[in-house]
């Protein structure tokens, strides 16, 4: 993985990381590194997750009660902290997803219109 490759990837928008974490956890408990990998892979390596920013975000979600955490063992027998979506987190995810889709659609319409005019 070269630096150039990384530079081509998209930086996450403010506030979207929380949503992506919640979305990733819907498939079951996962540890931090796994979440980062999952986001990158699911986005076809388009999105760059700064791993350093991931953990404070996890901490934030945990303190809000949207996810819960537990130390466990990873597939390759390493110790890792596993996160699980809570009921409140599921609700929050639904809410955020709707919001995000509306925002994305709206922005898309504006950009589309501009492109048409231009």
């Amino acid at each position, binding site marked *: *993985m070269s630096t150039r490759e990384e530079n081509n990837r998209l930086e996450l928008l403010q506030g979207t990381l929380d949503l992506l974490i919640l979305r990733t956890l819907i498939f079951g408990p996962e*540890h*931090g*590194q*796994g979440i980062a*990998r999952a986001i990158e892979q699911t986005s076809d390596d388009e999105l760059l997750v*700064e*791993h*350093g*920013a991931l*953990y*404070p975000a996890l*901490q*934030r979600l*945990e*303190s809000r*009660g949207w996810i819960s*955490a537990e130390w466990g063992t*990873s597939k*390759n027998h*390493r*110790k*890792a*902290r596993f996160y699980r979506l809570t009921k409140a987190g599921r609700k929050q995810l639904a809410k955020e997803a709707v919001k995000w889709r509306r925002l994305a659609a709206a922005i898309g319409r504006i950009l589309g219109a501009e492109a048409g005019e231009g």
Partner: protein
Amino acid sequence: MLSRKRKPSDFKAEVEAHLALETERLKEQGLSDDDARLAARRAFGNVTRAEERFYESGRWVGWDHLVQDVRFGLRMLAKSPGFTAVAVLTLALGIGANTAIFSALDAVLLKPLPFKDPGRLVFIEKKNPPRGWVRNPISPAEILGWRSESGAFEDLAAYTQTSCVLTGRGDPEEDPCEKVSGNLFPLLGVSPLRGRTFSADEDRAEGPRAAILSYGLWRRRFDADTSVIGRAMELNGASTTIVGVMPPNFSHLYATPYGTVPELWVSGIGLSPALTWNDYFGVGRLKPGITLQQAEARMNPISARIEQVHPDLKGWRADVMSLRTMLSGDTRPALVVLMGAVIFVLLIACANMANLLLARGTGRAGEFAVRGALGASRQRIVRQLLTENLVLSLGGGALGVLLASWGCKAMAALAPEYVLNSAPGLADSATDLRVLAFSLIAALATTLLFGLAPAIESSRLHLTETLKETGRVQSPGSRRFPSALVVAEIALALVLLAGAGLMVRTLTKLGQVNLGLNPANVLTLRVPLSGERYKEARTSAEFWRRVVASVEALPGVISASVARGLPTGDDWEGQFFTTADQPNPPAGQVPDANYIVAGPDYFRTLGIPLLSGRSFNEHDTETSERVVIVNEQLARTYWPGQNPLGKQLRMGSPSENRPWLSVVGVAGNVLSQGPGAGFHSEVYVPYRQFPWVLSPENLVVRTAANVKPVSIAHAVADAVHRADQNQPVVDLKTMEQAAREPMAQQRMMMALLGAFAGLALILSVLGIYSVLSYSVSQRTREIGVRVALGAERRDVLGLVVRQGFRLTVFGVAIGLLGAFGLTRFLSSLLYDVKPTDALTFVAVSILLTGVALLACYIPARRASQVDPIVALRCE
């Protein structure tokens, strides 16, 4: 929540786990061990930063910072003990003064009265608007009418002040006491500590005689013996049953400007609708929802009906006030003024502190710059400075509470008796929880007041400049703030000085007032004669004749006389009279005068001039012509332009048909109600003509100019006891002491306001001194250049003094404006001085300016001695 308790070490472990997992994944992709580890690190970004973010998101970081800041603050303060001492002391004085005054204010005005539902309790007097009379006692006829017919009261009780002499067991003693209606105690919702209160039967004038003891009297005279309940004691020469003991402090209900705190309560009030004797006070409990105005409105028609039956009561209407208002009385305006004054002192202290901190902040600019460069946010620095200040003001607050408890004791020693009466426990009230809460709030407010601006100012980071050179270059803006603070301090101090100055003027005026008598070298005392045999007027007169004769025989005594009613006291015996020229004035317009019973030599002994006619003498007895002496005021009012000698008048209402008295003398006017009350009509009647119900009880003795009146006090008391050893001698004092008593409140106000103004003066002058000193030290180089360019020492001196003078004049001008607006709150305490007295205002302005200029002179002199070579070389 579990997450809140998560430790940083756990977070760290998670990060390490992540790095391990990532490294493993990268190795699977074919990277070498080292490359994989490096790439994982790179992808993670700044590990320390992530840990910091975790740390900062935790709840306990705030607490951590606080502990850190407090520790750091204490270290910084310990490093500059001089600064710390000055700061803590300044704050302690400010907070202490506030705490002391607040505890008095709380005790007198705020703390709820210790009665059941005290908001509905009222005190009832009456006023006579057509004649301009206010705050008069009421009569049984009115009390009974209002109670049964107004519908405003749940209940209404009455009491009258009387004198109780206890004899039999132990020394004879007179105690202030009250004859009360039995319903007073249940009305207030207070039960006796022991025994019971009065029964309906005991309320009758001829009912069984019963007495209730105060806690104090019970402890003192009866050794807190429970078996005294139900026993008889000798009270005013008659056997009286002790039926109960009231709880401690209950007596303070009566702590009014009218009298002393009662030691016992006696039964037999005997209220009757036929009685019009104005000698009672009412205490009522309003029905729920009835206001003071509504109560008065309902009582007025009843008064109007009563005055049809009793012409003596013509024109009188109820005057209802809350019990709280009555109890706090004249103390309220004084306390409000004092509270304002101490808040000013605290503000001045805060301004001084702010200046001190600003100067210190400049000195610490390097420290802040370094901390800023190391990543401390501005908010963090402000917080840390505020914490440091909080430590200071809490320290000051703690010391202040200590000072306040001393201050309360000092106030208790200074306060007039009735102020103390309405604030029981003032002396130890500084330890009260409410007061402590107040001090804490004061400390916190103080921190914000003096600390916030300097903290923000100091944290304004000019990183590079400050680190390059140590803040030598000062923007003019940062110099303006301290100057504004100094101007504010001077203005506040001027207001306080003006207040104190007005009180000084008032007391000077009061001291210069000619009372109409000569109080020097006069001893006074009272013997409240009690016992069956003194009910006979002749026996009482004989007793006094013997006492006066033996006192006059004492060495050093010039003259002695008896009287009932002494000038400058509370003795006001208002009585109706009519003159022979107008024997039947319409009801409501019957003249009244202060009725004084006097013996021969009364006028000579007190030094009251006799303007015409003669004084009383030994021949004015039962069998001789009935005579009266009037004062100038009465003579001028009722016989204007005529010779009053030989005129006739008689006491009481016209309907009473009392004997006519011939005017044989006219005495000079005496300010008998104190300097503020003006002159009133007064009549003097000779004691041996047994004029009326009142028998004499005051003895006045004039000593030779070289004999101190107190030095003969024992001999005089002995003379009384030789005449009858069972009679107590009370209120032994000199006339000068008695004349000073009405000024006690003004005296206290002068002492306290003077102390606060003095404090304000010192603090504000320190303020201007420190600001100028600081400014001079900052301008050393500039002054050096000026001197090098040929400025004279005089010019430099003038430069600095002018700067200080400008600040002072600004402050004085603003302060004068403030004083013009604020001193009117003092007006009820002033005597013969306008609240905007020009002399006072000019005097305090000159005083303040003078002292401030002195304070400017010291730094100015230092500036003028700057050696240009040294000043320029130190660059």
